Every structure is written in C-alpha cells, then in structure tokens.
C-alpha cells in the first residue's frame, strides 16, 4: 500500500539552529513530492515540491528539500529557524499521476527562544 512516513511527531529546536524534518515514502514507479506547512488554526500552505530535475528543491521561507530516490526520502531542511517557523509540517506524495495526495502524519516543529 502507498504510504508516507514522518518518523518524528515533534521536533523542538532553538531559534537560529538548523533543522531537518524527515519524510520517507513507499517506493513506486513515479512519485511527486510535496511539503506543506500548517500554522495554528489555518489551512495548509505549499512550501515546496519536487516534480523532476534537480533533486534539491528550494521553497518559501528559506526551506529546501532533497529527493533521494534510492532511500525513498524527501527530507526538509532549514539552516537557521525562526520563532515564526513554529507550525506543523506535512509531507505529501502523488503516486503514479494520481488524482490525490497521500499525506504523512505530520511533524510539529517548535522553535524555542
């Protein structure tokens, strides 16, 4: 079955420290990979996506992610986090040109002063 795993349910990190949020997906013929952010009491907002080409993808707010096909991973990174990055982050995958996302369970990032 197609699935997306985010191993860390919560990640606390101090302000200005680097962070990595992990995402792994079940292998498939073709995958399209996305990261969404959800701020408190809001809907989801697209951070970045990988469709093809360069495996390093840059998104909004200084985030980037790297697609690793051999490890079936799409980890999200930021070199220096800010208090305003506190939110829930979701990895999502579209499998085989499908019409819907498969979402991971989410990682709650808490940036501490």
């Amino acid at each position, binding site marked *: 079955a197609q699935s997306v795993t985010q191993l860390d349910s919560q990640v606390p990190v101090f302000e200005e420290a680097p962070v990595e949020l992990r995402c792994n997906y079940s292998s498939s013929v073709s995958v*399209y990979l996305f990261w969404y952010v959800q701020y408190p009491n*809001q*809907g*989801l*907002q*697209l951070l970045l996506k990988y469709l093809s080409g360069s495996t390093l993808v840059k998104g909004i707010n200084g985030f980037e992610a790297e697609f690793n096909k051999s490890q079936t991973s799409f980890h999200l990174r930021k070199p220096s986090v800010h208090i305003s990055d506190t939110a829930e982050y979701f990895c999502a995958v579209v499998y085989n040109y499908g*019409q819907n*996302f498969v979402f991971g*369970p989410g990682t709650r990032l808490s940036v501490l002063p």
Partner: protein
Amino acid sequence: DAGITQSPRYKITETGRQVTLMCHQTWSHSYMFWYRQDLGHGLRLIYYSAAADITDKGEVPDGYVVSRSKTENFPLTLESATRSQTSVYFCASTSGGLIDNEQFFGPGTRLTVL
C-alpha cells in the same frame, strides 16, 4: 472575498444528527477535495470532485455524502453523525491535476460529535 471559505468554522452536534459542512471557492477551480485531519494520521481524503456533477470516493468515504451542483460549492454531509467523525475537516481546490497545479486549502471546520 476571493479564495476558499468553509462554514461553519466550529460545530458541535450529537450522535445521529445530520450535519452539512459547506465549502465555497471563488476561483472556478475544477477540482475540489474534502479531507479530515486526525492526530497521528495527517490528512485523509474523504471525497473529491473533478467537475460539477462528478464526484469520487477517497480513502475514508464511509458515513459521508457529497454533491457538486455548482462549480464553486462542494458541501459535505454527515447523514448520521458518529463520535468517530469528530475531526477537523478541510476543503481544498485546484485548477487542474495536482502535479502541475497548487492545491489551496480552506481554514478548516472543527466538528465535535457528542
């Protein structure tokens, strides 16, 4: 206002009652989606619609009914609410396929079934 809106934002109901959650978008997007968000599960697709009068089941459709008579509206009905349907419900829309078109999400409806 332009965008995607959901109403109500909060709803408390009792087991067995019928509840309808509304979703309205102003972009004339073809595709609309309903998700539920539960702790530890992320978002799970309930139903989606590729156009007016075209709907299809997602991952967790049981207990829900949708309709789409107009492009801009996509109501979700719980015909007989159960406690297991307590959740946060998100509506989303996109102009085309997910690969090339961004999916925009509404602010969510928090539903509590007592």
